[in-house]
């Protein structure tokens, strides 16, 4: 397939792996902070192509995994309302809230619909004027512009039965928290899709303030291996910077138009990340002009939150622990019966480990 096969060329991959083996003269730990990278790294068997002293660990890059249980609780509570429809991305269906998953709420009769975009949720609102449609807005800079454009559309059409339960987040503050909390890494594999929107400039503070290597990369095996090699070179030369490997999609300034939409609709706000707690200014709140679309206007009863005993999703999201370190992993917590959020999504660290690694 054009634009795919070229980046999966076995010979190019072998050459890159050889180069890495030659240049990797010490121990290196790099963190990827995008769920898409986590999934690609394991799907293509990248660790099996790297020398053992080049370690890749996963950070908080799966939007489903970092979505708080309270968001799920609010969704299921809203969905049980008489004239309410909740529209969400498929990945959220099986994420455990405190009491139940959205899938379980649907089985109990709640009107929960799967959508592929915010626009699809707005269309539901147009088609069902008698119902209040709540869109579960999750994701990073990748999905936030879509929500922003949709909210602007609803505003200009004067639609009054469309609402957003907002859990959007932005990535750079979370990366900073991880560094402040002392996770030991040599550099970041920076998120490619996020950077398409933000531009690589969003990560400049990392080499400047923390002296760590950064490479923005794509999602194909040659992309990821090239990025690992570039990171190793930055470390070896003690010259940390933000390099763009993913030049076919990413620029320094990013997608100015999308940034404009986000800025029009949202303002920075504190937000809770599952496993990381509240991170200042890492979330996006609807600005006053658009505040009436906020599903927070509906009063819902939220149960006392309770974390499953022994679940270490928080440590895994910070890169402090790896999935097999969790005593629930592959025993009590499996993709069929996820206890923690990292096991739910296809891009979650635990789910990926379960799928692609040895376990008993």
């Amino acid at each position: 397939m054009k634009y795919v096969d070229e980046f999966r060329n076995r010979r190019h991959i072998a050459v890159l792996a050889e180069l890495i083996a030659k240049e990797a003269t010490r121990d290196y730990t790099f963190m990827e902070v995008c769920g898409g990278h986590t999934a690609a790294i394991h799907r293509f068997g990248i660790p099996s192509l790297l020398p053992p002293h080049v370690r890749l660990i996963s950070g908080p890059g799966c939007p489903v995994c970092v979505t708080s249980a309270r968001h799920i609780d609010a969704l299921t509570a809203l969905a049980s309302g008489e004239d309410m429809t909740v529209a969400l991305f498929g990945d959220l269906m099986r994420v455990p809230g405190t009491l139940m998953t959205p899938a379980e709420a649907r089985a109990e009769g709640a009107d929960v619909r799967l959508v592929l975009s915010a626009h699809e949720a707005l269309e539901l609102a147009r088609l069902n004027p008698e119902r209040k449609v709540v869109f579960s807005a999750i994701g990073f800079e990748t999905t936030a512009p879509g929500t922003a454009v949709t909210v602007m559309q609803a505003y200009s059409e004067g639609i009054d039965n469309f609402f957003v339960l907002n859990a959007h987040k932005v990535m750079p503050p979370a990366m900073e928290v991880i560094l402040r909390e002392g996770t030991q890494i040599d550099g970041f594999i920076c998120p490619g899709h996020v950077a398409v929107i933000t531009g690589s400039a969003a990560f400049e503070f990392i080499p400047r303030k923390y002296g760590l290597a950064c490479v923005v990369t794509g999602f194909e095996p040659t992309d990821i291996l090239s990025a690992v090699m570039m990171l190793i070179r930055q470390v070896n030369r003690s010259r940390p910077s933000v390099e763009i490997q993913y030049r076919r999609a990413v620029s320094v300034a990013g997608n100015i138009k999308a940034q404009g939409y986000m800025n029009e609709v949202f303002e920075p706000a504190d937000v809770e990340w599952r496993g990381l707690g509240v991170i200042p200014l890492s979330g996006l709140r609807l600005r006053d002009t658009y505040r009436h679309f906020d599903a927070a206007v509906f009063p819902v009863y939220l149960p006392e939150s309770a974390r499953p005993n022994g679940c270490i999703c928080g440590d895994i999201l910070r890169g402090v622990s790896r999935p097999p370190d969790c005593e629930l992993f592959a025993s009590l917590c499996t993709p069929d019966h996820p206890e923690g959020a990292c096991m739910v999504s296809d891009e979650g660290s635990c789910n990926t480990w379960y799928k692609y690694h040895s376990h008993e």
Partner: protein
Amino acid sequence: MSEKITLSHGSGGRQAQALIRDHFAARFGMTGPMTDSALLAVPSSRIAFTTDSYVIDPLFFPGGNIGKLAVCGTVNDLAVSGAVPMYLSAAFIIEEGFEIDQLALIVSSMADEAEAAGVRIVTGDTKVVERGKCDRIFINTAGVGVLSEELMHISSGSSVREGDRLIINGPPGDHAVTILASRRNLSFDTPMRSDCASLNHLIRKVVERPSAVHFMRDLTRGGLAAVLNELAGMTRCGITVDESSVPVEEAVRGLCEILGFDPLTLASEGRVLIVAAADEADAIVERMHTDHQGRGTAIIGVITAGGDGRVILKSTTGGSRFLEMPSGQLLPRIC
């Protein structure tokens, strides 16, 4: 406006009799008196017996419809067990208000597919439920086939051994992608068609030498990944699949790239996995290539010793990983 199914079509009264006579019995070639059971002769003391229900949405899709699927699916379940499919039942649960023209199209496809597969639909049932109590039409088919002693080993995989080759008859996932695309109104440069087809004629060619074939299963829900894991679990053998040798349609690959699916986990309705003795595999592939349903046949992997029931995928990139049993429903990725 076309005629619609009403509750009285399921009442057992005059309308019900007329529906059965004009739309089912006539089309399925049931000429004898209406009895409670079909009385059948089978030329063997060993039969294979299976049943499946069909609730697909949309009812009509490129390459088939719920009726064709209901025949193919059950014929294939019999055929991959090594049996020669002979008789089917067909039971319909129809929602009040369903258009009789649509029903006629569905029944017609069933009759055509049964004829092509060489099976007879010999008994059936119709129920009509109130509007909203089912989604337009559900179909159940059961099937009976006859089985020779020398093919009894196929469904259990008990003869599978180290060195056996894995063969599939074409690219997997076309059915799933076609359904997904119809549901989401996605279109492709090259139009996708479901692979929905009866495989019993192809499979007759495969089992020409019964001892050469050690296992067969059709690649329905869960796709190749599910079938390989079931086989590995049943036999405790290892399985190694070479990803680059698995044929996949461009459109399927494209959609999988966009939505984050793995083609190896997508359902087909006209694809079969065959495990064959190493020294017979090439001859089987050659015979399969002569059949319309076997033109895309390829050898994709091998049975290994001591894999302890795990499936290893050698990826196109040169790395390798476990190919796991798919879990949950297919979820599109969100970023």
